């Protein structure tokens, strides 16, 4: 069975290839069959392989397809590597991907670029699978850039709008900044280890470096740069909110469930480097903590449904980074999985709402949808509950609770991380339920056009179930103590070690977290259902702050001023190429010489005679002097 591993990334690529070659000739009903079908098959293969893997020894499995490049010891192969970490990722990618493909089959049915959409989506899934299955960093970089490309293509899918194209380019360029950092990290790694094979690096790192080695820190920070770009973390987070210009399934698949977590995968995959570079790891945590706060507060002020979700995605990935930063690798991956379920669900549900309301994005023009769209309401509510980490019943609670606990109790954790995470948890539940109450409660402001079909609602229901039940495979010590997930990952990722004597306080942290989450829900209920006028009052009293948060803390403006404007200025002023002016100078001076000498040819014979005479005198005198 394991030998079929190559089929998992290959199937979506084959699907894309068929769509590219025959897309325009296929009927509209066949396009999703190819598109979703190929990903579905990949999911099936994943299931088979996963079953075999879990029932077996769980030993990593490597499959060499061919040697990609071979020069002088630099030998990246096209080879796939399956272990429990990549298994989690391919499972999430293929399954969530398949559900989103199903959803898109209906969501995009009216669109003229139907087959183009599925082509890009398939390409994306293929690249993402390549990213997580790669056995070396160059191949991972291929997937890494491939998903960036697909993200670009899909954000700018509705290319007729100028602003979509802008958002797409912004996403690609900003992530490329991170990618470049990562590429430089790869150069350093290659110079240090002479290979870019991931397992070789991980095992070599311990032998090569002391803890805190400068090279390790530098490489860690560079890889972090790559992760930050792709995962939309501080300071490269600005592309993600704009990326919401793409169709909703894209936001769900790429910008919530899978691609943006590539950074988390990278750091978890290269954990050994970060373990040896405490400074780099600390920065992972700091960036995570700052990001989750900043984007949490930004989400509070947004009124575009998808932008709220975008900021909440940034914020949730901040949690994952925080977990990675304190060394709770498996908690980060656990949160990734649960987040993929509920965030895909939220985006798909939001997409359905927007779709059914004729592309209305503003939550304040929605309202009262609870009765009109019951299925969407209930599934959205489940997703939102998970996002807000409502205690005990949601998957999000169990995954986030772990992170909160380790942020404090982990050996590398500290109280500041805990405070940030707690504040973030409160803000999360506040903005989540603000969104829920404003969208689904109150009076109906926009008429619902039509209803969602089965293809759209089925994925919602499945995801709702997954995001609830998924939490129960890993329960904390205080309740049940189930460790299916972290046991699964223990073969790959190191377990976190706790500080001395903190075990007893775990329930306190859990209690506070639960309390904060419920308080957030209540405050949201109070502000947006019971007394909406108080919201206005608060808003006007802190208008400047509101504006600041609304603009995403002014990052766009700063970058515009620091990078975009100078670059454009440089490009524009030098359009005609100043170097060419130097050559023009040569041309002009030649012209002057030409005119100067032409002037001596006056046509008056006597002048020529004078010239001859003077010349003769000069020659004679000079020769007399020098000889």
């Amino acid at each position, binding site marked *: 069975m394991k030998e079929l591993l190559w089929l998992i990334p290959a199937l979506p690529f084959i699907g894309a290839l068929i769509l590219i070659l025959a897309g325009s000739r296929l009927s509209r009903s066949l396009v999703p069959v190819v598109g979703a079908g190929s990903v579905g098959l990949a999911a099936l293969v994943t299931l088979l392989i996963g079953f075999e893997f879990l029932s077996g020894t769980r030993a990593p499995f490597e499959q060499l397809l061919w040697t990609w490049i071979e020069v002088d010891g630099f030998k990246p192969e096209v080879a796939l590597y399956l272990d429990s970490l990549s298994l989690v990722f391919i499972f999430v990618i293929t399954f969530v991907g398949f559900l989103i493909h199903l959803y898109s089959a209906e969501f995009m049915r009216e669109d003229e670029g139907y087959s183009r959409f599925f082509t890009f989506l398939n390409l994306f899934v293929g690249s993402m699978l390549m990213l997580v299955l790669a056995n070396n960093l160059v191949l991972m970089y291929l997937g890494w850039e491939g998903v960036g490309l697909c993200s670009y293509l899909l954000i700018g899918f509705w290319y007729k709008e100028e602003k979509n194209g802008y958002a797409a380019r912004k996403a690609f360029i900003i992530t490329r900044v991170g990618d470049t950092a990562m590429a430089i990290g790869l150069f350093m790694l290659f110079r240090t280890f002479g290979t870019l094979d991931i397992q070789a690096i991980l095992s070599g790192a311990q032998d090569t470096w002391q803890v805190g080695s400068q090279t390790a820190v530098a490489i860690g920070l560079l890889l972090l740069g790559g992760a930050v770009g792709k995962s939309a973390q501080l300071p490269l987070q600005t592309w993600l909110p704009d990326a919401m210009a793409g169709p909703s399934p894209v936001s769900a698949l790429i910008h919530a469930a899978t691609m943006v977590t590539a950074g988390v995968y990278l750091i978890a995959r290269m954990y050994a480097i970060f373990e040896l570079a405490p400074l780099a790891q600390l920065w992972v945590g700091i960036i995570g903590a700052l990001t989750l706060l900043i984007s949490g507060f930004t989400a509070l002020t947004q009124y575009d449904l998808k932008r709220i979700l975008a900021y909440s995605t940034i914020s949730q990935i901040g949690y994952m980074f925080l977990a990675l930063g304190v060394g709770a690798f498996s908690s980060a991956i656990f949160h990734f999985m649960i987040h993929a379920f509920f965030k895909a669900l939220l985006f798909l549900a939001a997409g359905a709402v927007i779709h059914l309301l004729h592309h209305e994005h503003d939550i304040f023009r929605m309202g009262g949808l609870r009765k009109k769209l019951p299925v969407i309401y209930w599934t959205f509510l489940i997703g939102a509950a998970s996002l807000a980490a409502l205690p005990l019943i949601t998957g999000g609670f169990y995954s986030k609770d772990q992170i909160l606990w380790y942020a404090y109790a982990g050996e590398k954790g500290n109280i500041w991380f805990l405070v940030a995470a707690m504040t973030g948890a409160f803000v999360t539940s506040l903005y989540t339920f603000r969104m829920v109450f404003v969208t689904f409660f109150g009076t109906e402001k926009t008429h619902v056009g039509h209803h969602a079909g089965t293809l759209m609602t089925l994925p919602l229901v499945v995801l709702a179930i997954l995001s609830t039940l998924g939490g129960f495979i890993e329960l904390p010590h205080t309740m049940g103590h189930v460790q299916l997930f972290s046991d699964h990952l223990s073969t790959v990722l190191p377990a976190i070690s706790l500080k001395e004597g903190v075990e007893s306080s775990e329930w306190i942290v859990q209690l506070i977290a639960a309390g904060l989450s419920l308080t957030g829900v209540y405050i949201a209920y109070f502000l947006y259902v019971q007394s909406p006028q108080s919201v206005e009052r608060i808003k006007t009293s802190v208008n400047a702050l509101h504006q600041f948060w609304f603009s995403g803390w002014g990052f766009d403006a700063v970058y515009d001023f620091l990078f975009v404007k100078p670059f454009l200025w440089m490009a524009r002023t030098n359009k005609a190429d100043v170097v060419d002016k130097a050559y023009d100078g040569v041309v002009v001076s030649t012209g002057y010489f030409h005119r100067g*000498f*032409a*002037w*001596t*040819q*006056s*046509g*008056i*014979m*006597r002048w020529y*005679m*004078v010239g001859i*005479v003077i010349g003769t005198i000069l020659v004679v005198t000079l020769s007399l002097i020098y000889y």
Partner: protein
Amino acid sequence: MNTIAVESGLILAGVLFMLGLISVLVRRNIIFMLISVEIMLNAAGLAFITAGAKWVQPDGQVMFVFILTMAAAEVSVGLALILQIYHQLKTLDSDAANKMKG
């Protein structure tokens, strides 16, 4: 036989040459310019003769014969050109022939 000092001959040649040169430069009439060139040629010839006499060599006189023939050829070509110029421009002013101005 009275001999004339070499210096006197050379000075005369020099004076003649300068006269010729100056009148080439200041005269605008092409005929006069041609005549002045003839004077310069003859001045050069005189210088050769003087030098030949000084060293008692025939070369000076040989050179003078050369100059004579050359002058003859030059005058014939020159006069032909002058005629053409007059024919074309209806004037003998050399400054009028400035069509080749750069």
